């Protein structure tokens, strides 16, 4: 099933034409209505008339998170506040929150994009969808919520937390699809097991739509096996819209972008130069919407454009599963390390668990990376040798992937933090 064939299967010429038109319109609106954009464009010597086609987008200045903070709260809105019907904001743990304002039309665009994402995931109006993303200032809960309603499926607005209650609802309502963060999905799977339930027999879940944090293919396999579902990856960020910017289809080979509203570019994070298709770089999005369109917003997420057309029949471009964030990247003794690399290694080892923490320390001039991993209860042995061999195996597998030496510590089951609410924080950098 395809939700909007006209757009999702359009010819590249048609899409490019549409993107050019929407970009021109968007640039003209922000130039005239948002002092911040007018100043930035004038500094760059660009006038709205210089932007004719979508290819001209590279002439435009970038927008950074800091720019949104500098214009806190409503300085980047492109419409009078009377036109705004919804305000969302980031938690602002690293500074002032980032605020976004949406018009009535924006909300319908969002619900359209989420309906496309749900359809990409195989959800239909027959499904019951439990939304276990946070409802509130965070875009996850409400974003998926209105998409489900738009699609015509039944939404269970469970929000986050209260895991036993969530499981009871899954069981009693015969919920068929769940939307939450992938780390919560794993937590849910473990709790289901602890309660003595078997997803195959006791639940009707068949699809999961997971996002809001980067996760690996190995984690996907683990979730699919544990919950007996097909796990889809949905991408979005509140600055651009929220969940629904892109989502993967049945083929699970990259996420189809709603390119008619959200234009992706992949750039070298250091130079800002465009990357070729297939080359990893920073994902940059422009949003062609009403309340707060953004031009070339630097997401700090790492991905690549997957070349070619998908077998599912859609013509929209695909971005690869997110590979982490530019800012998550740890530079340890001159080597770039992504937490997702460690996770991939752990998940490829049947005896390891996906519960881990990374700690970076500095002694003198020497940086060290400590990886704490929980052991699996069932693999427990009375032998020091077995555990030490296991520890060595993890160490050598991780070292061969990262290219630096690491310290591996084994931890008791369930001793590391779980991330029941919000996003997983698995890195502690003591060098800062």
């Amino acid at each position, binding site marked *: 099933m395809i939700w909007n064939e006209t757009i999702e299967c359009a010819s590249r010429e048609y899409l490019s034409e549409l993107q050019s038109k929407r970009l021109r319109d968007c640039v003209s609106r922000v130039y005239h209505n948002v002092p911040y954009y007018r100043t930035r464009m004038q500094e760059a010597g660009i006038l709205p008339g210089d932007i004719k086609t979508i290819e001209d987008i590279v002439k435009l200045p970038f927008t950074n998170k800091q720019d949104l903070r500098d214009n806190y709260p409503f300085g980047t809105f492109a419409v009078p506040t009377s036109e705004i019907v919804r305000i969302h904001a980031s938690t602002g743990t690293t500074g002032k929150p980032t605020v976004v304002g949406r018009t009535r039309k924006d909300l319908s665009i969002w619900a359209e994009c989420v309906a496309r994402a749900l359809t990409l995931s195989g959800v239909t109006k027959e499904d019951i969808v439990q939304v276990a993303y946070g409802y509130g200032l965070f875009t996850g809960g409400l974003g998926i919520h209105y998409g489900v309603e738009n699609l015509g499926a039944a939404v269970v607005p469970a929000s986050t937390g209260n895991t036993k209650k969530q499981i009871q609802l899954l069981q009693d309502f015969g919920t068929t699809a769940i939307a939450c963060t992938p780390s919560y999905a794993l937590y849910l799977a473990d709790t289901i097991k602890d309660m003595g339930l078997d997803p195959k027999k006791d639940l009707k879940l068949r699809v999961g739509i997971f996002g809001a944090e980067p996760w690996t293919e190995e984690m996907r396999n683990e979730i699919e096996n544990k919950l007996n579902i097909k796990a889809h990856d949905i991408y979005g960020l509140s600055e651009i819209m929220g969940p629904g910017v892109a989502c993967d289809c049945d083929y699970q080979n990259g996420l189809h972008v709603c390119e008619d509203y959200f234009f992706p570019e992949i750039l070298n994070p250091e130079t800002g130069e465009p990357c070729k298709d297939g080359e990893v770089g920073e994902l940059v999005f422009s949003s062609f919407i009403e309340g707060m369109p953004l031009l070339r917003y630097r997401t700090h997420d790492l991905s690549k454009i997957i070349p070619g057309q998908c077998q599912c029949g859609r013509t929209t471009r695909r971005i690869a599963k997110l590979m982490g964030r530019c800012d998550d990247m740890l530079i340890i003794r001159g080597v770039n390390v992504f937490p997702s690399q460690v996770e991939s290694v752990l998940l490829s080892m049947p005896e390891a668990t996906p519960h881990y923490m990374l700690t970076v320390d500095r002694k003198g001039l020497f940086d060290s990376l400590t990886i704490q991993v929980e*052991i*699996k*209860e069932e693999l*427990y*042995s*009375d*032998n*020091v040798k077995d*555990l*030490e061999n296991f*520890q060595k195996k993890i160490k050598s597998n991780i070292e061969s992937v990262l290219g630096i030496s690491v310290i591996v*510590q*084994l*931890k*008791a*089951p*369930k*001793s590391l933090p779980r991330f029941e609410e919000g996003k997983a924080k698995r890195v502690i950098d003591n060098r800062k």
Partner: protein
Amino acid sequence: MKIKQLCVFLENKVGRFKGVADILGKAGINMTAFSVADTSDFGILRVIVSEPEKSLQLLKEAGYAAGLTDVICIKCPNTAGSLAKVLDVLNEENVQIEYMYAFSMGNIAQVVIRPAEIQNCEKVLEKHGIELVSSDSLYSM
């Protein structure tokens, strides 16, 4: 005669052993003997308890990584040179031992042995008339 030994993964952290002792104590489970193998990061507690199955269940419920392993326990006189005699036998018969620990009461010493191959070790000990302690008597000691 095989004995069920409880073993528990302990992180190198203050109060980890106390946690285990509390759980067993509250359930009225007695420890007859134990030893701790330690590395720089973690330790393994090996303990003979009055109710191995129940202990395992309680510890698992409390989130510990624990398991049961088969060991054997021998009896010998609590006198100089008597363990050496037993070890001579095992040595001659080429029985490999992973680890062992012992405790003595009055004139008798009991040695818990974790051999690499438990069946073979049992046979050898029987052949040479070395007395094995039954699980029932050890659990209730």
